[in-house]
Each structure stands twice: as C-alpha cells, then as structure tokens.
C-alpha cells in the first residue's frame, strides 16, 4: 500500500520552512493512459475497469476512497495512480497504457505556510479560489517539470521524474 515515509533526507545545508513538512510516498503504481480516438469511449472503458469516475477536464483529478486517483493532464491523457505496487491495467481497446511506476518520485508537501513556500518556485496561482482541491497541473519549479496535485489548501502532491527529485528537494527547501 502507498505509504508516506516518516522522514526524508534533504540537502545538508538546507532546511524546510517552519511549519512545512516534505515526505515521500512509497508503494504505488503509476500508469499512463492515453487515446488518439474517442475520448468519451476511452473514459467510459477506463471508468468501468476502475469502477470510479474519470476526470474529463484537463487539470482535474478524481480520487477514490480506496486510494485510487486519476489525474487528467491533457486532452486525452491521464495518469492512473494506484495505491499498490505492480498494479496493472487491462488493455483497453483503442488506448495505450504505459507503465510509469518507476519513472517518478512522489512527494507530499504540506503545512500552513506551504503556499508561501511554493510561491518561491511555482508560477501557478495556488489560492483556493484559483486552484481548488482536486486540481492538478503540469508545471515547472525552477525548470524542473512537476505534476502538481492539490490535496487541500495546505497539502500538495508533487510527481517528479526520478532524475530531478534530488534537485527538487533543494528547490523546495531554503538555505539554513
């Protein structure tokens, strides 16, 4: 099952802003799901397989109580986040499924002043009026590509490619 590590090693000379925590998830699967055909049909088939609603509007995500989360980050592109490792999707007609479980590190950054902290590097407007819980967006933190998911006003999940993960921690922290 997906777990949050109790602690995370951040760059030696850096520290997190007071009140902000940064932790890393383990034990999950990420599957890229896309189609070049009929979007409605694709979402219907995916919804049937996952037994949950599928977001159809880009930059939105739907999370299920069982831990499944589907993020729509393009017109016909989704990222299926399953709360267990080695989880597979059955092939869906007219769609392509690609396993990206090993490609990304997933961080959770949370705390009262987290928006202030993220504003240093994130060009998005994270105010609740502009970016409600359940929103997601592909963005860049100081040139580092990040898929950001809004858990709530004080908590964000950040999907980042492996190679950038160490640098992202530097970016999310401040010098001591």
């Amino acid at each position: 099952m997906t777990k949050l590590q109790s602690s995370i090693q951040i760059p030696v000379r850096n520290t997190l802003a007071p009140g902000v925590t940064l932790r890393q998830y383990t034990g999950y699967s990420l599957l890229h799901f896309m189609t070049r055909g009929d979007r409605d049909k694709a979402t219907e088939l995916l919804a049937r397989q996952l037994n949950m609603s599928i977001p159809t509007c880009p930059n939105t995500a739907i999370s299920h109580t069982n831990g499944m989360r589907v993020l729509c980050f393009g017109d016909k592109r989704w990222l299926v986040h399953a709360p267990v490792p080695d989880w597979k999707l059955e092939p869906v007609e007219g769609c392509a499924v690609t396993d990206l479980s090993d490609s990304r590190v997933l961080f959770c950054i949370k705390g009262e002043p987290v928006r202030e902290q993220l504003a240093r590097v994130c060009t998005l407007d994270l105010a609740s009026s502009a970016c409600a819980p359940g929103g997601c967006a592909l963005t860049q933190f100081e040139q580092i590509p990040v898929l950001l998911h809004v858990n709530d006003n004080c908590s964000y999940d950040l999907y980042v490619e492996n190679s950038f993960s160490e640098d992202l921690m530097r970016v999310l922290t401040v010098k001591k």
Partner: protein
Amino acid sequence: MRMSQGGLIDRGRILNFSFNGRSLQGHPGDSLASALIANGIRLVGRSFKYHRPRGIFSAGSEEPNAMLRIGPEATAEPNTRATQTPLYEGLQARSQNHWPSLEVDLLSINNLLSPVFSTGFYNKTFISPRKLWPVYEKMLRHIAGHGRAPGQRGPEQFEQCFSHCDVLIIGAGPAGLAAARRLASTDLRVVVVDECERPGGWLLKENTSIDGSNGTDWCDRITRQLSAAENVTLLYLTTAFGFYDHNLVALAERLPSGAATFSQRLHRVRAKQVVFATGSIERPLVFANNDLPGIMLAGAARAYLNQFAAKVGQRMVIYTNNDSAYRSAVDLSDAGVDVAAVADLREAPHASAIARLSERGISLYKGARIAAHGRRHLRSVRLCHSGSEQALQLDCDTLAVSGGWTPTLHLHSQSGGAVRFEPQLDTFVPGTPKQATVAAGAVNGLHGLQECLDDGERAAVTIAKRFGLVTGAPNGRSIDPSNESVENQLLFDTDCPAVKVVNQHKARRRGIGASGKYFVDFQNDVTISDVRQAYRESYVSVEHLKRYTTLGMGTDQGKTSNLNGLDLLAGLREEPVPKVGITTFRPPYTPVTLGLLAGQSQGAHLSPTRKTVLHAKHEQAGAVFDFNGLWLRPRCYLRHGETEETAIGREIRAVREGVGMTDVSTLGKFEIQGADCAEFLNRVYIGNMDTLVSGRCRYGLMLSDDGMVLDDGTVTRLDQQHYFITTSTGHAEHVLQHLEFLLDVLWPELDVNLVAVTEQWAGVAVAGPASRKLLRQLAGSDTEVLESVPYMGYASIELEESGQCIKARLLRISYSGEMAYEIYVPAHSATHVWELILNHGPGFDLQPYGMDAMDVLRIEKGFIVVGADADGRTTPMDIGMGAMLSKTKHFIGRHALTRPAMHESGRFQLVGLQAVNYQDGLFEGAQLTRLAGDRGYGASIGHISSAGFSPLLQRHVALALVRDGRKHLGQTIYSQDPARACPTPVGVTIVEPCAYDPEGARLRR
C-alpha cells in the same frame, strides 16, 4: 541640522552609520539622504562627465545626484540612491566617481575642459584609427563615472517568488490608499505596493488634514485597516519596476537588513487588474549653475522637513513657476528657516499664495530670473526681473526649485498604454490603457488632495465593476460610498506656465552673472548647449537627441530631465511638445541588481541537475562527473593513484579486449503504440521503418524540415504495434517536442500514442568481446534467447540472481564497435542489475567506463554525435549517410534535400583525421587550414568536431567537418589551435571516418 521635534523618525533610538569613513548618526525612519542632511553633509558625489560637485537633489526615486556605494568596500553596491535607502545600523556609504577624494577631485579638470567635451565628443574623437579602439575603450571604461561593480559577492540573499492577485495597486499615496480601502471591503485579493518604507506617499511629506486628523494619522489608520483585512497584502520598500504582457508586473522588494535570510526579493505578480497610483515627480528649473550642492527640489526640501525633521539649510531662496513651492516656503519658514525670498517666474502668482508669504514676511520677486553662485556649494543667488538688467544678490545656502510636476507614466507606458499631452498642465498624462489597468491620482495630472482621494475611489469602483461587484456580486460585497471629509486642499497646486527652461537674455545674463552651465540632465551632465548643438547637428528627433546627448539615460532614466529636454527641443524645432513626442519608457523603472534577477538560480543552481538512478553506484566506483546537457554523467572512473588519462585508457582497453559496462539511462526513450506506428516512423526517419520486423532494431536518422540532421537513435519493434525508440541524451526533449508537434498538429489522424519513458527505463550497456559470455551468467533460463539475439536484434529476457528475476529489454546494438548489448530495466531495478553485472565481472575483468572512453570508442569507429559532428547545418549526405535516404517514401526534410545547395560543392563533409606525426595532439574545436601559414578570416576550411587519444592505435583520432572533405581524402591539411596554446600548426591527413574495424566484423560476432 536635525530639528528637535516633528518628523516621523524614532528619536528614541540611534543608528550609527558612516559616509566616506566618517562616523555619523541617524534614527530609525531616516533615509540615508535625510540622515546625511541632518548631519550637515551637502556634498555627496561628483558628476558623471565634468566631475562637478553635487548634492542631494530630491527625496525620491528620481534622485540624479546622490548615487552612493553602499556596503563594505569589497562588496559595496554601486549607484544606490541615498534617497531610497532606509538607514540601518552599521550602514557604510561611500561617494563615487572622484579621485583622489570627494572634496579634492583632480578629475574636475574636465569641467575646465568642457568646451572640448561637448556633445558627440567621444563619437567624433575615438572613431579613428579603429585599431586603437581597444585602447580607447579600456581608458573610457576606466574613467566612466557610474560607479564600479563590486569585486566580491556580497552578503545579500536574493529570492524570487510568483504572486497572483485580483488587483495590484502600485503606489500607496492618497489615491492608492483610497482605492485599496474601498477594495478591501470586497473579497478581491488586493496587493498594495509602495517603494517607500511606509505608506502615505506625499501625505507623509505635507502638512495636510483629512477627516480632522493629519495626513500621517489618516495613513496609519487606513494602513491598520488594510493590514487587518485578510484579502489585502501590503508590500513596502517595494518598487514596481517593470510591466509586461498580460498584466505581469515585476516588483523589487528590499527587505531591511537582518529582517530575513534574504535582503532582496523579486516578485512576479500576475494581476487581473492594476491600479497605477504612481504619483508625479517634481521638475527642476534650468538656470545657470543649477547643479550646485544646496540646490534641490522644493518638494524635497519640504519632505526632509516634514517627514524627517531635517532642515536642508539655514537661509533659503525659493525659485518656482508654480504655487506648490510656496508651501515649502511656508513650512520651512514656520520651522525656523530663514526664507530670504521667493522668486517666481510668473508675473502674477495667485493672491492666496502671496498672502501666505506676506503673513510670514517673506519677500516675493515676480517675473524673476535667477543664477546660482558658489564653488563647492551654493553661496548666493543673483536675481533680476525679466524686463530689467538690474540684479539683486541674495546670500543663501539653499535654493529650492520647482518647475511643475510630471506624472509618473513609466509603468502605464510600459503596459502599452497611450499617453496624451495635457496643455494646461504642460505635461503628458495616461491615455487609453492597453491592458487591464486604471490610473488614479496625481499620475492623471490631479493635484488636489480631495481630487486624488476621489480619483482613487473612482478607480476602485471601476475595478469593482469589472469584477461585477458594484451591486453586490455573489462572491463579494459591494463597494461602500466614501464618507471621508477632506478640506479642499492641494497637494501640488501646479498652475504653471510652460516655462521650465529659463532662457536668459544676454544682457540680463550679464546682470545676474549667469555665465555657468545650464543643466538639463544632472546625471549625465547634459546642458542646454549640448541640446542646442545636437539640434544644430540635425539630431532633431527626440530619440536621436537622447542617444546623442545621453539626455534621459543613466540610472535615473531622465525622471527629472526628460520633460525639460523635450520643452527645449520643441522650442528649437518651433513645434508644440506633442509633435516632438516622447521617448519610450522601458523597464526597469529604477535600477535593479543582477542578483535580484538571478534570484536563487545562481552558480550550481543556474539550471537543474539530473542524476540517473545509478548515480550513487558511480560515486562508489570513483566516478569523475561531467555534465551532458542537464545530466550528470561519469566521465571516467578513477582508481587509486590514477590520472584521468590513464583511467580512460584502461577503460577503452577493457571494452576493446574484455568487457566494459556503462550507464546509458540518460538516452531519450519513447514508447509508441498504435496501428499507425510504422507509418509514423516512416515519415519521421530517413530510412524505411515499415520493413522493420518484430524483435529487430534499426539505426535511424531524423531530419528537421530544412533537411538538416535533427537527431539519431535506434528504433526497436517490440511487437506488431509497439515500438521502443531511443534518442541522443542532449536532444531527447527536442525530439519529444518535434514528435508531439507532428502527431498533434500535422498528423492527428494517425493512431500513434507517444509516451516518454526515459525515466521509466534505466539502461546499462555491456560492451566488449566478452559481453555475451558475461551476460550468459545472468540470463539463467533465457540463455538461449540471449545467444539467439542477432546483431541489431531485440529480446525480452529475465535476469536471474538468487531466484530473483528482473524483466529486461535486451537490445544488441553497439556504439563502441564491439559486440555489445544494451539492457533496459525498470528504473527501480537498475542498481540491482548494475551490481549483478558487476558481481559477475571479475572473471572477465569487467570495468565500468565513462563518457570519455565512450567518446574515443565511437570516434575510432566514425560514429557521430549529433550536435558535434552534425551541427544543425549538416545533411545526411554530409556525414556520409546519404545511402540511408529512402527513395520510395516521403519523410520530414526530404523535400529540402532536393535543393541545389544541398548537393553543391563546398559543403562541409565528415571525414576522419590522422596526425602526420603520430605524437601530435588533435583537439576538438581546432580550425583546419590548407597550408600551415594560413591565418585570419576565410582561411579555415573546417574544424575538428570530435577528438580523443586512442590507446589502441597509439595516436589521436579525430572526426572533422571539412569543406569538400571527401574529395580530399589522403591530402594533408593543418590543424591550428592557438586557443589551446598550440602555436604550431599540426599536419593531418584526411582519412575515412572509421579508423577501427571498418568491416564491422567485431560487431557481428
């Protein structure tokens, strides 16, 4: 000259600071300028060109003279305006642009030589002989008068942040505060910024009253209200310095020293609506010697008195063309300053203003012309009536001048908004906005306090309407009407005639002794004579005038000089000012440091660093890293006591004679799935990809639209509708964008699903004659599969170790010229696989090898690197791959290759190079010439694109792009590399690119 009471300073605390090494004291609330004035410092700098003595001239961001170096000597920040620097404990300030000292500046000889240094002097004098320009440039840069960059990095920290709001209010003067107060009652997110330490603008500098309380108290009350409002953010000491598209505004926030871990912060604010409450700037008057220390703007004299309790002088004369300076006379007189006279250019000032002078016994001279006298600072003024030659001398130490007020249009203009000339005010005011902005207050040419407050309210209502909040919108409350009671009082009552440049009749000039310089632009030492000369030399356009004379340039960007210069030029052209036009306003409004623009992205953090999942393993193995794009990759692996050269040689031999392994995770990797993949690949690559069968790989070259090589890599058909393609490390992002563009824009009908999997699959290349033997140890039950994989073949295998299986994609492809396999595994298994291979390595003398060894191996084979050996001007024919071009299909770039120029002689072609003397070194970037003595422009016939030392061949190997290179195989040319201190040309023979195993027998074993 600090007053015993009044002002907005905290007299209870002392702040120690220094100016040119002299210890001084001030108080919290002081600016550096006010503290200097309070300590009786008048001379603060020397002028740019003539090294004339200069004093503090203003109290705001328009300051042209008081540009100081702030901070410890080694890290001092130059050109810092004393007027905008809040005083803090331990502040160190130094004047600049003088030698040997501020008081005795030998370079002031320039003032005596000023007839020589007229406008255009540099352009005319240093244009020839051209060969001497480097000498001239060095000398001119040395004596240029705008400070010098610090030698060391300062202690300041720089940060950046991104902000968003519904309304950004720029300026917290009366109009800005009125707008903010109204908008605070809505649910809109409001940000209010002001460049000063506390809000209020001119309300802090004037004796005004609003609703029965003075202006300062009113500001404090409004500020408390705004601070308490959750939807309002107040930023002080923050300058909005740039306005960009879509209401993006750049703010420079200065944080008082010690308040945080950083001292400057750049905000990039995206605002839905912007209110320009930027106020206006007082204009100086142009008269003889108007730059002497002791002469300052009348408003500034008032500001130092009212806000900082600092008297700017003991005996003062005021020279004006409008009523606002009368307020200075009144305030200063009431404070005990001896105001000797008010000299008014007008013949008929307002009666009310005259009455206020009469009450205090201040003499008024109407229709006056004036000249200032003194050497290092003002000693006296001589004035006469405009119709008379009889002059009167008045001894004084301060002259306060006012030539009217210029709206601060900069940001409005930067936003693309139009400006219009207002004849009654003799200035430009904001016209039709281009972006979502509203101007309010003095920037609109309004100068009454009530008018400004009302205009702020009007702006708030306009903004609220745009958000649909006037009658109470669902998400917000409606705007309440104002109930403020404000006396009908003026902030800057500028009923001024269009006379700012005081043209003196010759006879009257004699009378008042007006033989000095008439400065239009203080910071750049531009005088009336300079403008006239430029006009005589046909620089009649305002933009040309600016560039020829430097009027309006420099760190103050002509805030006090532009309008006066414009008036002067209009007079010379005998045209109205609007017809002459106005120069373009460009960011930044006030100077910003490079550190602020860089923010956190400095040094090693200029761009992100990517590390492969095997990075820790490389570190353990003693890797020396280098960047390949953003990726940090091992260059070589050092063993104890080894040099890099030795290590690279060892690694190369391992691959050629035994087996080596290297991390190829950085290669770009994509998966494509769908019914039309073969068709898509056929259109993208120059070779036929539809004939590629499952289980096979193929080398592919893709071109840009212009027919030039874009990238190379491999295509592997995993199954009927599933491909795995690799690209070069440096071009992965570019290729992804290229392919997505093709699919989404050009060929949306193709059923091709493209996903980047670079990070999903880590790769390890195992290369060398013993590679297959080594992998047999890991293949377990898939040994037969491994054995059956042909050259350019693919198989899915399971690597086994202690009963644990790891699924891998095995590609038998080689970049070294040896039998080799690339093994791709899910990234989280990569370290395990790396260890697995390494553990089986000792029997085969397995060694990890880095980029440098890989480079030599591929150069020996004549394999290219796109970016080096194909540099964006290179076609497939140029690199000897013309045979790969399919003649039976269309592909991107094919049409461009039919252009005659692609086949003409004279193109740079890829060849190999061999040093005539085997011991000579060949290096990347060296230029190639036909003869050893060829030098200079046009001598080069090519350059070395890749080079390295081959331990196997015991010589340097190189690839080069040589003009018509393939026609000259066997010929000797010369490599010249003076940049590497190799002054002697090296003779090289042009050979085939492949220097090792040209038949490829070792690959196919």
